[in-house]
């Protein structure tokens, strides 16, 4: 059933967290498909479940998370149900992650070079060769003086350098799937542009797929081929980046794009917002999760869960009001 170039497939993924306030339904039947050579954006605001989805992709879910349904398949195999040793064999080597904050992702008391050698523990080569590989990868991501940087500690590097080093570390094992969690959030706009440029250049020699998790529509517009928009633990729309931006079908996608000040061409003193709040995910609504904030809401939206409506070969939305 799985298409040969499908690398990663998330099916009906449902994850809950046990918390003091009850069971939090963080992901409610999320799904996505990533093929080799694609750059995919996972977009949404705080609390939409994108970080839980990213953690599930790399099999690093928190200890209070429970997968109640669904699967994450890498090359057809469900990675969530594997024994721990098999999970470790995949993590880092086949599916790697660039974490949000490169400062805390690295060990502060070891030089970068030592850490980058350790990341290659799967390989049989001697340390000297691993160090040379690390050096070559640092040079590849545009770090000047890679020999010098190998001996540096993280606090000695600038924010942009750290982010480049984090990308180099994730790519060391040439993983098929690279998950980048908010790769530019900690950076200034000029560094952000440079990291986007770097990721674009890397996609050409990276044979696999890159998944970019972000709340920043600008990053998606500049970088991605396809997008999954998330809201309240669900994928509410998927499509090509051009369709999502120019012809969004889900009202939440449309509202999200309208809110981005970068989208407004003319001077607008009163910025658009999305009135209302996210639903409480300890008691998710029976109907559409966006109903309370939606301009097109009907009685049916409040009562019934919306269907997944396919509008074209590449675009689909989770909405009662969308027609094919």
């Amino acid at each position, binding site marked *: 059933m799985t298409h040969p170039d499908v690398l990663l497939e998330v099916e009906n993924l449902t994850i809950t967290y046990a918390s003091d306030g009850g069971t939090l339904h963080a992901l409610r039947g999320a799904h996505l498909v990533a093929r080799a050579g694609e750059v995919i954006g996972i977009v949404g*605001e*705080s609390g939409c479940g994108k970080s839980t989805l990213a953690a599930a992709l790399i099999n690093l879910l928190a200890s209070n998370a429970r997968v109640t349904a669904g699967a994450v398949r890498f090359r057809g195999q469900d990675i969530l149900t594997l024994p721990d040793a098999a999970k470790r064999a995949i993590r880092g080597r086949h599916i790697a992650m660039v974490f949000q904050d490169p400062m805390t992702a690295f060990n502060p008391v070891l030089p970068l070079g030592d850490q980058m050698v350790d990341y290659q523990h799967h390989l049989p080569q001697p340390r000297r060769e691993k160090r040379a590989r690390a050096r070559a990868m640092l040079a590849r991501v545009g770090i000047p003086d890679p020999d010098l940087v190998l001996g540096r500690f993280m606090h000695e590097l*600038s*924010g*942009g*350098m750290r982010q480049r080093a984090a990308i180099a570390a994730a790519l060391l094992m040439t993983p098929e799937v690279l998950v980048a969690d908010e790769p*530019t959030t900690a950076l*200034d*706009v*000029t*560094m*952000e*542009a*440079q990291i*986007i*440029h770097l990721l674009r250049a890397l996609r050409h020699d990276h044979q696999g797929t890159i998944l970019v998790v972000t*709340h*920043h*529509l*600008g*990053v*998606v*517009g*500049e970088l991605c081929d396809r997008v999954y928009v998330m809201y309240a633990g669900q994928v509410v729309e998927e499509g090509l*980046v*051009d369709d999502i*931006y*120019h012809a969004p079908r889900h009202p939440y996608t449309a*509202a*999200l*794009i309208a*809110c*981005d*000040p*970068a*989208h*407004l061409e003319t*001077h*607008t*003193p*009163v*910025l*658009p*917002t*999305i009135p209302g709040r996210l639903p409480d995910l300890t008691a998710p609504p029976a109907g559409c999760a966006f109903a309370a904030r939606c301009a097109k809401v009907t009685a049916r939206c409040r009562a019934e869960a919306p269907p997944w409506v396919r509008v074209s070969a590449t675009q689909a939305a989770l909405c009662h009001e969308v027609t094919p």
Partner: protein
Amino acid sequence: MSALYQVAGLSVDLPMSSGILGAFLPGPKPTLNLLRDISLTLNSGETFGLVGESGSGKTTLARAMLGLQAVSGGSLTFQGQPLASQRSFTALRRDAAMMFQDAVASLSPRMTVTALITEPFVIHGLPLPDAAAKAAELLAQVGLPPALAGRFPHELSGGQARRIGVARALALRPKLVIADEPTAGLDVSVQGEVLNLMTDLKSAFGLSLMIITHNLAMVRHVSDRIAILYLGRMVETGPTRAVFARPAHPYTQSLIASEPQPDPRKRRADLAIRGEIPSVLRRPPGCAFHTRCPAAQDICRQSAPESRALGAGRQVICHFPNPI
């Protein structure tokens, strides 16, 4: 419009540690030049945007303007009165309030919301007959439910903490509010809410606002005038719309061109700016921007350009500004 706050020729230097030998060596002690020759005027009722990358001196300028950072040269004037003594700054901080950068961290974790938003009265020894009533009034003004009054900061969301910051800043009915990164870390829809709230309160109370940010897309819509800082120099200033329409300084131009575009049809082919902002410890000679400037010539490497007026309220520090 009348001038509310004037900054003229402001410089901020920090003494640098020169080791134990330095204490005995003759000659001037080494200093770190954080801000040099900053001149700007905030008018009553206007919103002024202060833009720059990390390390450009934005926060230092705001702190110096409120007397929270010792200055080494220049003069500050509020409503025609010179600010020189600690006493004058204490009085100023009744009329000019600051919203600090990290909204949650700037709220004391052991105080309730009521105590936090009425604390300015306590600090300035002003009468506060009914703290609960005042707190309720302030909460209503910033659009928060009265039920929040007894909460502690860790029980607030990012957007709510930001609104508490606004309430605290407005408690004493100031004439000027300086907001340091008021939208950093907020989702786009919440960003709009916080900014709209600030704009509404600004017109309701006749406030002046100074917004410190690196978010160009946002500041372009909410500010009347902007200033761009680079390594402690104010490289360009002018009316926001004119500056965005035709940036005079190559740095301003590259900043605007670096902003990621959400529209995939406007995807950028090439980088507008390369390299990183140099450290203030190693400030380039001549024009500080020459190391990254696409238009740099010999004179830029040798001599620092002077500030020049371009007309229409615009000023630039550049040897070869773009025609406006």
